[in-house]
């Protein structure tokens, strides 16, 4: 069996085990059942040695490991000292505050440095209602924009494709250090690099395995992410949604005349379809306007990340810092107006009430069947 297949199986099993633990808690009978199953499959594996038994062996084994990992996991709640890198972020953010007006500097610091505490509650609500809150954090999307810009830059100055890919990876890594290495940015960095790599291979739709494996490593390091960290769940599911459903939504929106609007519509619908239950379960609201609002908000990220990178490199030179930040002011001012406009529409978001866990048990199997159906009809292929 290919190594990536083995890893994928282990990843699935592990996450299943972590999920199982959070659903039923620690109990000896589950451990006993798992160990019995493990030894049974193990015995068959030794005598028979077929692919299927190895498969079952791996999955039961990794479920057990996942179960034990969360059972024995103790989160470190001690307040860490401000690291050197976190200080570098606050130096940059203070510099932004010196140059930009307060509202825009708050949005800038959220988009580029992942610090959203300065944004007023009203504005956060507007971003929530329009389903565009994801831009106010360092997400896989921001990182992959940075990565793509760096890669293009590398190609432009005459690097080989392979070299410019590694140049982009290096740039992303240093950017993550620059913003203080918060775990969410590290995860976003991993996701962003995977997306860049997958895109370069030119077959995004087939590259779900590295995403699952990356998810596995992240949950292995901190198993509480999987069940308790909404940000992690949303970004993980959004990436999977884009991988599995982008082609289908691209077909649905074939009639949209402008290419970038078509791409963004299908991306945001694809992300929406896999994250919907998490949103309903946690917040009880669904943003109806989200696909349209995202068409206007997401493109803003590219110039902002570009100017943000420039600013981060030249922040020590007052004139250059201003030259990079003042254009951001106008872009962000318009963006905030747009978000406020869409957020003020009465039907922008619909209250559906929080649901129970049953929603997941019903929704995801149905979604899987839907995907199977699309696969069979060949509707997932890109047009």
């Amino acid at each position, binding site marked *: 069996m290919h190594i990536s297949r083995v890893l994928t199986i282990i990843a699935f099993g592990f996450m299943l085990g972590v999920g199982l633990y959070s659903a039923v808690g620690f109990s000896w009978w589950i451990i006993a059942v798992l160990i019995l199953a493990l030894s049974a499959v193990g015995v068959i594996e030794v005598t028979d040695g077929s692919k299927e038994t190895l498969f079952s062996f791996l999955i039961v084994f990794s479920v057990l490991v996942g179960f034990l990992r969360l059972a024995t996991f103790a989160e470190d709640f001690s307040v860490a000292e401000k690291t050197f890198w976190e200080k570098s972020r606050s130096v940059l953010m203070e510099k932004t505050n010196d140059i930009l007006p307060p509202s825009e500097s708050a949005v800038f610091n959220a988009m580029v440095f992942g610090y959203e505490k300065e944004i007023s509650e009203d504005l956060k609500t507007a971003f929530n209602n329009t389903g565009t809150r994801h831009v106010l954090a360092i997400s896989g999307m921001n990182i992959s*924009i940075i990565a793509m810009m760096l890669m*293009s830059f590398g190609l432009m100055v005459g690097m080989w494709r392979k070299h410019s890919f590694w140049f982009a990876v290096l740039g992303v890594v240093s950017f993550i250090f620059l913003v203080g290495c918060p775990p969410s940015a590290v995860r976003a960095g991993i996701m962003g690099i995977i997306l860049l790599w997958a895109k370069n291979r030119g077959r995004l739709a087939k590259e779900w395995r590295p995403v699952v494996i990356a998810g596995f490593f992240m949950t292995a390091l901190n198993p509480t992410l999987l069940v308790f960290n909404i940000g992690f769940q949303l970004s993980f599911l959004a990436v999977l949604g884009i991988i599995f459903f982008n082609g289908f939504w691209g077909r649905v929106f074939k009639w949209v005349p402008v290419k970038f609007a078509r791409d963004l519509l299908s991306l945001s619908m694809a992300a929406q379809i896999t994250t919907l239950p998490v949103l309903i379960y946690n917040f009880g609201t669904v943003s109806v306007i989200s696909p349209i609002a995202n068409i206007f908000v997401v493109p803003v990220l590219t110039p902002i990340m570009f100017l943000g990178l420039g600013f981060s490199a030249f922040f020590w030179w007052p004139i250059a810092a201003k030259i990079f930040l003042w254009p951001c002011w106008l872009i962000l001012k318009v963006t905030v107006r747009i978000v406020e406009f869409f957020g003020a529409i009465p039907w922008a978001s619909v209250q559906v009430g929080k649901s129970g866990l049953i929603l997941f048990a019903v929704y995801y199997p149905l979604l899987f069947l839907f995907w199977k159906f699309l696969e069979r009809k060949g509707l997932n292929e890109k047009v």
Partner: protein
Amino acid sequence: MDIQCPGRMINISKKFILGTLAFLTALVFIAVYQKTSQKPEVVFLDVGQGDSILVILPGDIQILIDGGPSDKISAKLSKYFPFYDKDIELAILTHPHTDHLNGLVSVFKDYNVKNFIWSGANYESKLYSNFVEVLKKEGSVIYLAKAGDVVSYGNQPILKILSPPEILLGKSFKDVHDSDVVSEIDLGGKKLLLMGDSNEVVESRLTASNAVTDIDVLKVGHHGSKTATSPQLLQIARPEEAVISVGNNSYGHPAANVLSNLSNIGAKIFRTDKIGDVIYK
């Protein structure tokens, strides 16, 4: 997320260059417009229950008197500032009560305050001592208010301090309103009297020393409280217009007799809780 081969981004198209140039032109246009459209004006900001007054002068000059009760002031101020200007040329603290001081802390954080005027009187509060720390770090030039001090812009006197009569640094007061910084603004011949939260003690001192003259606009003292704005003061000041900076409160501001006294002398009343920001041009 833009799904396209990065290699294609090498060819920076004409459209992209034109778009960038158009955008930069718009930015420069806005900057020039914001710079040249500045006219002298005084804005009584609607900050809820509290005081904050912004004086704008051509040439990116801003004077801020008090900061209101909350950090919402920073975003509010940015509406009146050109986007490239993060300097406040002068800030004044009338007295250290929360509804005047709290917002000033965030103003010091978000803006660069070049000069600062206060009474320096003693006052026991955590916020006040926190503010003093912030003030030390900011590096503003600090002046202690004293009647007769004048702030000029060009050769034109803009702001005159009427109270306190002497330097109060380190002095303690039973009622800190006694230490209030009262000032008069001269906006091209129009006089505005800013009473802060002065009580009748300060008012009678001002009228007795003939510091108050006939003015055009009165910023009514202490949010229209019954302990301020005596008929004696109104008789001398004779404002044509009166501004009350007030929000939802349990103190009964503004008092009914203050409102009727103002109407009796024919002053038009503008309240920030009724009409939002009051702008005097």
